[in-house]
């Protein structure tokens, strides 16, 4: 017939326990005049949230705030790699003094590293069918034992709730605390993927690459001598056929690192070294 009622009661109690455990590390963040958002006490004295106005990373929408040390329990973090599609999860929020709020559902999809439309590099693809209600942005994704696996963002995708996993939160939080922003690699060019003409393709054994459309003055590319019309066909020995390979080498802690570019110029292969600089920050 149906489940023993005590089993359902046990599941219900377990979910409420998970909410109470993880909810103890949550704060309501009143950054906007009307609706608060949720913050997670990620490590002692540091709250991680989204969309707040200070110490914010536009690439991932994460922001950090400082609170008094020892004022509330610190988040118990989980390992997002253990979550598989179908796992029961909760989205939590704290909007007022009334205690944590919860939405429940299942993990929908997981995967590897990806880049969100705001430009930030996210270490793991983690989506669920949870409803991210008003004020739930910045709140944690929690498993059935109350472990926190990341921070939910209302702004990164529409159909499914997207979670910024623990590793990405740690990385962005550290940079925001150390320098107030997340440094991203930059070489100062505009590019377009192209195919090489058949003769050059045949002669150089290269299919295509990235055509330089413009080179900014006083940028790493111009200092290295790259010219408009050059086609970058390999980076550090790896063939390039789109933007992803370039964006990958510009992500992470790369400022000051040297890239060896293989470039087709006037039908000949030339090798050019570019030193990655920090992307200038607009509207600072």
């Amino acid at each position: 017939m149906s489940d023993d009622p005590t089993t359902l009661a046990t599941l219900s109690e377990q979910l409420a326990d998970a909410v109470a455990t993880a909810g103890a590390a949550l704060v309501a963040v009143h950054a906007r005049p009307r609706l608060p958002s949720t913050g997670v006490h990620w490590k002692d004295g540091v709250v991680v949230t989204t969309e707040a106005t200070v110490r914010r990373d536009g690439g991932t929408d994460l922001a950090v705030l400082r609170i008094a040390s020892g004022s509330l329990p610190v988040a118990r973090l989980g390992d997002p790699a253990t979550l598989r599609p179908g796992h029961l999860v909760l989205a939590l929020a704290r909007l007022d003094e009334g205690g944590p709020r919860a939405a429940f559902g299942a993990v929908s999809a997981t995967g590897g590293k990806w880049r969100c439309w705001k430009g930030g590099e996210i270490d793991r693809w983690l989506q669920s069918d949870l409803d991210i209600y008003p004020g739930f942005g910045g709140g944690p994704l929690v498993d059935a034992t109350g472990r926190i696996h990341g921070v939910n963002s209302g702004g990164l995708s529409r159909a499914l709730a997207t979670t910024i996993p623990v590793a990405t939160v740690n990385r962005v939080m550290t940079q925001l605390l150390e320098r107030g922003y997340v440094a991203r690699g930059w070489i100062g060019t505009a590019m377009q993927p192209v195919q090489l003409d058949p003769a050059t393709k045949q002669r150089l054994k290269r299919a295509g690459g990235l055509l330089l459309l413009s080179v900014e003055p006083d940028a790493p590319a111009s200092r290295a001598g790259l010219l408009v019309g050059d086609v970058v066909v390999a980076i550090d020995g790896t063939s390039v056929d789109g933007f992803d390979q370039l964006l990958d080498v510009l992500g992470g802690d790369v400022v000051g690192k040297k890239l060896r570019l293989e470039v087709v110029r006037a039908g000949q292969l030339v090798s050019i070294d570019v030193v990655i600089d920090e992307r200038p920050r607009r509207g600072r």
Partner: protein
Amino acid sequence: MAMSTTFLSGPAEQLRARVVGIAHGRRGRGAAGGAGIAWSGDLFVTSAHVVTGSHATIVTPAGRALPGEVVRRDAERDIAVVRAPGANVPAVVTGDPYGLRSGSLVFAVGHPFGVRDAVTVGVLQAVSPLPRGYGLNGKGSLVWIQADVRLAPGNSGGPLADAQGRVIGVAAMVVSGVALAVPAPDVERVLAGLT
């Protein structure tokens, strides 16, 4: 934990046998208006916005349509009570929403978009006034059961129940995507003195 595939089907089956369809007027248009709860004896609880006049038609789980009289109406709390003698629908068991914690399993039974006795499941968010920024034309300061459960037109007046199928509230509306229900103790207050 051993969770079999039947999940909430037992409590849902029990509760579905205690939920009626309600339409306003003497000759209701099927169950399109909303849902009602067999509360005790001949008394059925629904939302005030489901029954706007003094008469209502209830449709039993067996599909029988019966005339009913609206004997109480609290527009502010959005609760109405309909008396329908001879309906012969077993009464629900009520539960205490204040005894549940955030994250507890809850489910609703109603007739969303006319689908009879549909079950939707989720978790409790809070039993409190609405958070700041969730607008509700001044009614946000009333205490509402707030739940992460899907409601649609046709759920109004139907039950929100805990994992054991005890009715903790009456589904009223959706605000900012959150399901709102009137707490069972408030329903009892509207019923006070009726037998």
